[in-house]
């Protein structure tokens, strides 16, 4: 397939998805967040084309849509790993040894904190408190929570994502 047709099939897919979302949530401003959230989930990040299209239909400027997308941590405006590992960094997690957990993750994935693996599969981040301080240290991989982490446990968990 040529580069051009691959590109147009992607935009077609985006158009289709967006149409479904506009049907589901409507085209008022209040529909913006759920639409961006679902597009982020489907496409890994909210790229320029999505921003332009959403702006057009919701009758907003593209900068305004970008302004919203870039405000929220979990809405991404740049490509990111398929699996985002967010290690909680509140003091209960720090005291329970989250540094060790981060080190193990860095070594296992071959990346540093804040980086994405070269195959685009994993991104490693620190996160603000994820509400699991009673089971610290804790982390999220995308939407799934992992608690009472130990280095060994981390290695086992990663096997499920490889």
């Amino acid at each position, binding site marked *: 397939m040529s580069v051009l047709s691959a590109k147009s099939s992607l935009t077609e897919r985006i158009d289709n998805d967006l149409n479904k979302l506009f049907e589901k949530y409507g085209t008022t401003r209040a529909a913006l967040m759920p639409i961006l959230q679902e597009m982020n989930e489907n496409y890994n990040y909210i790229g320029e084309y999505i921003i332009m299209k959403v702006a057009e239909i919701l009758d907003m400027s593209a900068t305004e849509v970008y302004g919203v997308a870039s405000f929220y941590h979990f809405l991404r405006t740049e490509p990111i790993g398929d699996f985002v590992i967010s290690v909680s960094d509140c003091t209960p997690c720090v005291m329970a040894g989250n540094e060790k957990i981060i080190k193990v993750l860095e070594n296992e994935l071959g990346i540093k904190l804040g980086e994405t693996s070269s195959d685009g599969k994993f991104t490693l981040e620190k996160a603000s*408190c994820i509400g699991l301080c009673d089971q610290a240290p804790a982390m999220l991989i995308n939407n799934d929570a992992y608690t009472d982490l130990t280095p060994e446990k981390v290695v086992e968990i990663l096997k499920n994502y490889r």
Partner: protein
Amino acid sequence: MSKEKRILLDGKEYKAGEAIKIAAGKSGEDIIKIIKDAGIKGRGGAGFPTGLKWSFCYNEKDPEKYIISNADEGEPGTFKDRVLLQKNPRQHFEGMVVGGLAIKAAKGYMYLRHEYKRFVPDFEKVLDDMRNDNHLGKNIMGSGIDFDIEIRLGSGAYVCGDESALLESIEGKRGEPRNKPPYTASQGFLNKPTIVNNVETWTYIPLIISKGAKWFKQFGKGDNPGTKLFSISGDVDKPGVYEFDKGVSLQTVLDEAGAKNTKAVQVGGYSGVLVAPQDFNKPLEYGPEGLPPGGSIIVYNNTRDMVEVLLNYMHFFYEESCGQCVPCREGTYEMVRTLEKIKCCEASSRDIDKLTELAEVMTISSKCGLGQTVPTPFFSAMENFKEEFLVRECAL
């Protein structure tokens, strides 16, 4: 003997649909009177009387009103709402329906933090069950009122715990707090009258309606009736969510959770106070002698470094400042910078004095609760642990 209570946590007092059935047969005024008589104050932390908030919204002339549940539990060290929602989401939603019936609301939204997204399928199922039982939807239990609830997700912004920022977010905007007044009770979601309450408050409502104000007032103390949930973490044997009568002392809570060799306790989340042992006997309650009763308690034992602790807090606030107003955006940056200097043993008392001055400015000139309370843990750290900030062992 254990002083723990399990009114909310056990859920045994709750019978699904009972409160909705009662509320459906009452006028809005009568429902609000029960809540007012019970004297419940908002469980989110600010402690505004719930009945009064509802009556403000009820008295607004605009007929289009909204109900919001603030489930954006982002204060570090807080996880009580998660536990409550995992145990009994229906009781929480039923509270929202009672509120909806009281003010004849057009719709309810639950604003759930992104980090709890994994619970959404369970919650959707509960909402479906409620629709099947006519506890949601058209003409709820013959009341003539239509009301439904939609779950909206946050996307990882701590500042959205501020109710006006939360509303901006549901409206599809950046989660930047609004100027107050006007308050949300008169101009909330889409500038319509709106009741915003915390998950814990909503979860209490069905019990108050079913069992009455008098029942509720047997718990707690005087002006602060009921029980309260506390999230306890850090250096304790048994971290978790505990429930106590309102007005319980911090020491009682620490004993129950098994805290030993405690040096300091962060009460009320990162934006609360860093309490030293001489104040452990104070009550977790509003008032000049009280400690912030929001519910987050992080325990530090005598091996912990308060400079590192405060630096962690300030990193968090720096990350989470929405950047809208200067005192908060620049103030949090300066806090981090100077604390890094203190950590590296390169700061003098002049740096601390400057930081204190900055903290005072942030308190009075920041736009919302975030910037205004960033300095709170700093002030209490200075009051209780200043020596650690002046001389660190690594310098010797």
